[in-house]
């Protein structure tokens, strides 16, 4: 039987990315502008609710579809890709997995339709790779938690209306006790700080979340008190697949662009594609990209089927896809020669966008720790 669902989904994404995402990619990069109009279009198509079940207003599709969407959009624009990834993996997914029925009914429909965008607050000035060293506190009072502190480098920061935020709620046996909360933009004491000026993904909003005596209702505690670190780590497992898909898309976009370029650009009377150096470089780029794609979809399936290998699968996918993206985009610039270094061609942007995928949601070093840790635990 023909799998029309997949065929139509892929066709829609390709059309959309090509016609709506691609034309804006250069502009939002140069102007460091959040692609609000594209986000609104994505919302109308249901792209922000791909994995959210139908009873909460989503489409009820799976991780493969979601990952494919991030990949396809990132082929043309890494910025737009990460908006979708952060929203879905870091906000919608944890509410879906750890939320109460009331929380799901309250928050998921707006996230599914894209009426509200989602974000996630974990990183702090002194808690990056060392995520356990949280300084933000949530003190339990009679009727609420009092949230104080700040989070930095928050993707969709300021643009998102719903945030999952990790904070210290007390002392645990092995260190601070952490908990997760759903926090809404507009609450008293919740403001936004510095917008980062970045090397790549320059259209994505990256800013600081500041909490000053923010009163978080008790029903907004996500999961149980003390489960915050676990929720954060599980959320990042999913998030890493999204970033891996973003990296994969960037690599594919750079490869496509380069193939077209070397066929048309002539030097010494021959198209660049006639030179063996070009051919071999392209062969290596395509092979690594294909390998990255395989790892990304293995991880997506692991997430979909809740496999115990998820952490390792996600870490491997992100490690390999992000390093592949960096390598492929660097080679793409090289094959473009001087033109590749100009902003007239998209490959320099892709190279700048690729770099962040080796850093955020766990650096390549963190991924190696996760992978080797699992190996040596046995």
């Amino acid at each position, binding site marked *: 039987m023909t799998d029309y669902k997949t065929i139509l989904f892929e066709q829609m994404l390709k059309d959309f990315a090509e016609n709506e995402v691609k034309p804006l990619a250069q502009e939002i990069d140069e102007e460091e502008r959040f692609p609000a109009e594209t986000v609104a279009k994505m919302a109308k198509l249901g792209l922000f609710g791909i994995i959210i079940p139908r009873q909460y207003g989503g489409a009820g599709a799976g991780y493969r579809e979601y990952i494919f969407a991030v990949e396809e959009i990132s082929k043309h624009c890494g910025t737009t890709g990460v908006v979708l990834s952060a929203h879905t993996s870091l906000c919608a997914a944890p509410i879906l997995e750890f939320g109460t029925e009331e929380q799901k009914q309250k928050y998921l429909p707006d996230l599914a339709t894209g009426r509200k965008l989602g974000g996630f607050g974990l990183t702090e000035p002194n808690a990056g790779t060392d995520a356990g060293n949280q300084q933000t506190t949530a003190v339990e009072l009679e009727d609420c938690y009092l949230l104080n502190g700040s989070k930095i480098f928050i993707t969709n920061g300021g643009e998102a209306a719903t945030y999952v935020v990790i904070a210290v709620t007390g002392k645990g046996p092995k260190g601070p006790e952490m908990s997760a909360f759903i926090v809404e933009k507009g609450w008293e004491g919740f403001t936004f700080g510095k917008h980062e000026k970045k090397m790549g993904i320059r259209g994505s909003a990256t800013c600081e979340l500041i909490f000053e005596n923010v009163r978080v209702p008790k029903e907004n505690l996500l999961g149980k008190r003390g489960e915050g670190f676990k929720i954060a780590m599980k959320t990042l497992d999913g998030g890493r697949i999204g970033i891996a898909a973003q990296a994969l898309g960037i690599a594919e976009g750079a490869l496509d662009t380069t193939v077209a370029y070397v066929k*048309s*650009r002539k030097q010494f009377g021959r198209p660049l594609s006639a030179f063996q150096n070009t051919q071999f470089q392209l062969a290596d780029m395509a092979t690594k990209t294909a390998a990255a794609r395989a790892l990304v979809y293995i991880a997506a399936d692991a997430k979909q089927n809740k496999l115990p290998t998820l952490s390792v699968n996600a870490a491997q996918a992100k490690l390999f896809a992000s390093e592949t993206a960096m390598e492929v985009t660097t080679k793409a610039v090289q094959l473009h020669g001087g033109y590749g270094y100009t902003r*007239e061609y998209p490959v320099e942007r892709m190279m700048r966008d690729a770099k962040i995928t080796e850093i955020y949601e766990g650096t390549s070093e963190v991924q190696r720790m996760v992978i080797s840790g699992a190996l040596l635990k046995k």
Partner: protein
Amino acid sequence: MNRIWVFCEQRDNVLQPVALELMGAARSLAAQSEGTVGALLLGSGVSPLAQELIACGADTVYVVDDEKLAHYTTEAYAQAICQMVREENPASLLFGATSIGRDLAPRISARLRTGLTADCTKLEIDEQGSLFMTRPAFGGNLFATIICPNSRPQMSTVRPGVMPKPVRDDSRQGEIVPVTVAWQTEKLCVRVVEETKESQSVENIEEAKLLVSCGRGVKNTEPAFELAKKMKGTVSSSRALVDAGIMEQPRQVGQTGKTVRPQAYLAFGISGAIQHLAGMEESEYIVAINTDKNAPIFKIANLGIVADAAAVMKELNKLLEEA
């Protein structure tokens, strides 16, 4: 009797060029098949046009001059023509492939249950009066020759501008037959609320059939717009003129502009950088005019002319002025 009929489209009581072109085509088809040419003239106050159709080749002009035909509507025109066809049994019935002809002809063909071939670019006939109607299909990649062996009339819409106009002969004699239609008024149920003439809408270079494209070799673009108007085309541009602020960005052809595929691409003073060629090399017929005989554009042009682009443009405008 091999009657070849032409629906002679008029708008605001002016015969359309395609009506005269079809008179010429019908005349030549009749000559090859011992036929006669009938002209169908429909409208309100159109009777004075009948003589012109005789001068252009009609043996008989059937005139339906009726207020119901003042504005074009499908049903009224269809009723009138079907009545005449049923009374006179023409062998062939030709329409211009205009937005009127292509609306009306299929309605009539279904009512008469006969064959219709759309948008023909070539018509041939054998001695028995059988038509061979050739038309493009698949985006112009394929040409099909269609016949209609067993039913009459053989119907066809013919692309405007393809058939040559006949030489007018005011001494020709012909018959003018006024026709009264027995209207089925209950079927005349589409109401014309408003009819407004308008000038050509906004230009889109991707949809143009002919592009007058300008590059660095064209300093003044005004003659290009004049030429495009005369050639029923649109003006496009290379990147150089867009960057220089002389042309608007939507007109830019090439890698960072639009990809076009017109039937004719006239490159004036465009050298043909690879980025430009990528956007237009699929054009069906490429004419290049450039002073540099080594310009890359000449490698893909069907017709290349080494000359000053602005000067050639000026001559073209002059030439088409006279025509």
